[in-house]
C-alpha cells in the first residue's frame, strides 16, 4: 500500500523519504519523479532514511470512527487514537502519524520529543499491514 515509506525493525526502524541530489530537499511521502523545488533543475531523487526523533508540532485525536478507506472492525467499539504531527529538525519537515497504542492526547505536549517506531495499522487472518507510529521518547510499549 505504501511501498518504500519505511524500513527496518526495532531501533533500526526508519521512515524513508527521497532527497534531491541537486538542492538537498527531502520529500516524504517519497517523491520519485522530479524535485518539486521550483528553483531547482533537479536530478534523480535518491532514497534517504529520515531522522528517528523529532519534536511535536501539534497533536489531536479521532474520537469518532474515520470513514473508509480507513479500515476498522465495525463489530468492535471504536477506540480513539492520537495523531501527532512531528517536526524533524534536520529535514525541516513536519510528518503526521498515528501515536503508538496506549499514547493519548493527555500524554502529549507541543515541543515534546518523540521517536518513530514500527506499528500495526490493521490485520486480518491473512495479512498484517504495518505502518509507523510516533511515541514519546523513552516510553516503552
Amino acid at each position: 500500500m505504501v511501498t518504500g515509506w519505511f524500513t527496518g525493525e526495532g531501533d533500526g526502524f526508519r521512515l524513508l523519504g527521497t532527497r534531491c541530489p541537486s538542492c538537498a530537499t527531502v520529500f516524504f511521502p517519497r517523491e520519485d519523479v522530479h524535485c518539486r523545488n521550483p528553483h531547482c533543475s533537479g536530478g534523480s531523487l535518491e532514497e534517504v532514511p529520515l531522522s528517528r526523533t523529532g519534536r511535536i508540532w501539534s497533536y489531536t485525536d479521532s474520537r469518532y470512527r474515520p470513514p473508509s478507506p480507513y479500515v476498522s472492525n465495525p463489530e468492535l467499539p471504536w477506540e480513539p487514537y492520537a495523531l501527532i504531527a512531528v517536526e524533524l529538525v534536520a529535514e525541516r519537515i513536519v510528518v503526521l502519524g498515528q501515536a503508538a497504542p496506549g499514547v493519548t492526547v493527555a500524554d502529549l505536549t507541543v515541543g515534546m520529543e518523540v521517536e518513530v517506531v514500527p506499528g500495526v495499522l490493521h490485520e486480518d487472518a491473512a495479512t498484517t499491514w504495518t505502518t509507523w507510529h510516533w511515541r514519546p521518547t523513552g516510553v516503552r510499549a
Partner: protein
Amino acid sequence: MTRDVAVLGAGMHPWGKWGRSFVEYGTAAARAALADAGVDWREVGSVVGADTVRGGYPGYVAGATFAKALGWQGARAASVYAACASGAQAIAAARAQILAGLADVVLVVGADAAPKGFFRPAGGERPDDPDWLRFRVLGATNPAYFGLYARRRMAVHGDTPEDFALVKVKNAAMGALNPYARYRKRVTAEEVTASAVVADPLRLLDICATSDGGAALVLSSVDFAHRHGVARPVRIRAVSTVTPRFPNTVLDLPDIATDSAVAVEPADATFRASIARAAYEEAGLGPEDLSLAEVYDLSTALELQWYEDLGLCGEGEGAKLLRAGVTAPGGRIPVNTSGGLASFGEAVPAQAIAQVCELTWQLRGAAGDRQIAGARVGMSANQGLFGHGSAVIAVR
C-alpha cells in the same frame, strides 16, 4: 477601462439536509439570482458551474448540467473544480470572460448534496491520491486537521477552548438571523464546551457540518449593468486564486507532511496570508478598508487564524480581537455576518459563492436584521484542498 465586474444578482437555496439532487439546489439558486438581477435566462451568454465530485458525470460537468436544467439556450459553458475554492474559481472564470469581452452576462452556480458525517475520498484503491492516503494510512479526517491547527494555536498563542467557543457563539447569533442558514439557533459558550469532543481540543459545535445547499451569482460588465439600469452595482474588484509558494511549511489538508525547508527559506507569509495579500494587491485596498469579511470557519479556531491571515490583527492576536468584540456586529470589522459555515455547514462547490452572496447583500444594504451599517468594502476568504487559494473583494 475598469477591471471591475458588476454583481447583478445573488441567490441561494436554503442549506440543510434536504435529500434532493445538487441540480435542484443549483437551479433554484440560479433562478433566484436571475430574478434578483432582473435578467432573463436567455440573455445569459455563459454559465460557469462549480463542480461537485459526487453525483457522477453530471457533477463533474456542472456548468452544462445547470444549463440543461434551466433550458438549453446556447450559452457558453465551463465547469471548474478546486475543492472548497471551486466557487471562487468559477467567479474568476466568469470575470475573465467578461473582462475579455467574451460575454456580457455570466451565471455562476455551485451546489452540492453532501453525504452525512465525515467527508471521504472517492472509492477504489488509489494510493497515488494524497486524499485517499491520509484516510487509508492515518484515518486523518478533516476535523483531525482542524484539531491539529487548534492545538497549535493553543500552544503557540495561548488560545483557549473558551476563545474557540466564543467564535461559535458569535456566528450562531448571526446565523439565527439568516433565512438561508441551516442552523438558526443561538448557542451559548457552555453548550459548545459541553458538546462531545470530535478531534481534541475541538468539539462538535466547534466544527462545521456537511450540508446540502446552492448559491449563484449573475455577473456582468459594468457597462451592461449601467445599460440595465443599475447605476451603482456592487462590483467585484479582486479575485485571488493563488497557489502556495514552495516550501509550504504549514501542514495542509490533505497532506501527510509539509514541504521540507532545507533548501529554500519559507516565504515570510503563510499560504493563507498570501491568498489575502494577492486580493488586496489586486484591489488596491488593505485590511483597514474592509467593512466586513466572510471567512472560512471550518472550525472555530480556524476563524481566529483567518483574522491574522487577513491582516485584521497581528499574528497571535486573533483571540484578543474576538474578545474585544471587533469582529462582532457593531465592531470595527464584523466577520461572518452570514453566520458562516458554523451556521450553514459545508456544501463544497457552493460556499465560496455563498460568501459573495452575503457580501453583495451587505454592500447593497439589503441584509435585513444582520445588516452592517454603511458597508462599503467586503472580503471573502477560503482555501481549497490541494493548494487552491480563494478570496474575493467586493465594493460598493
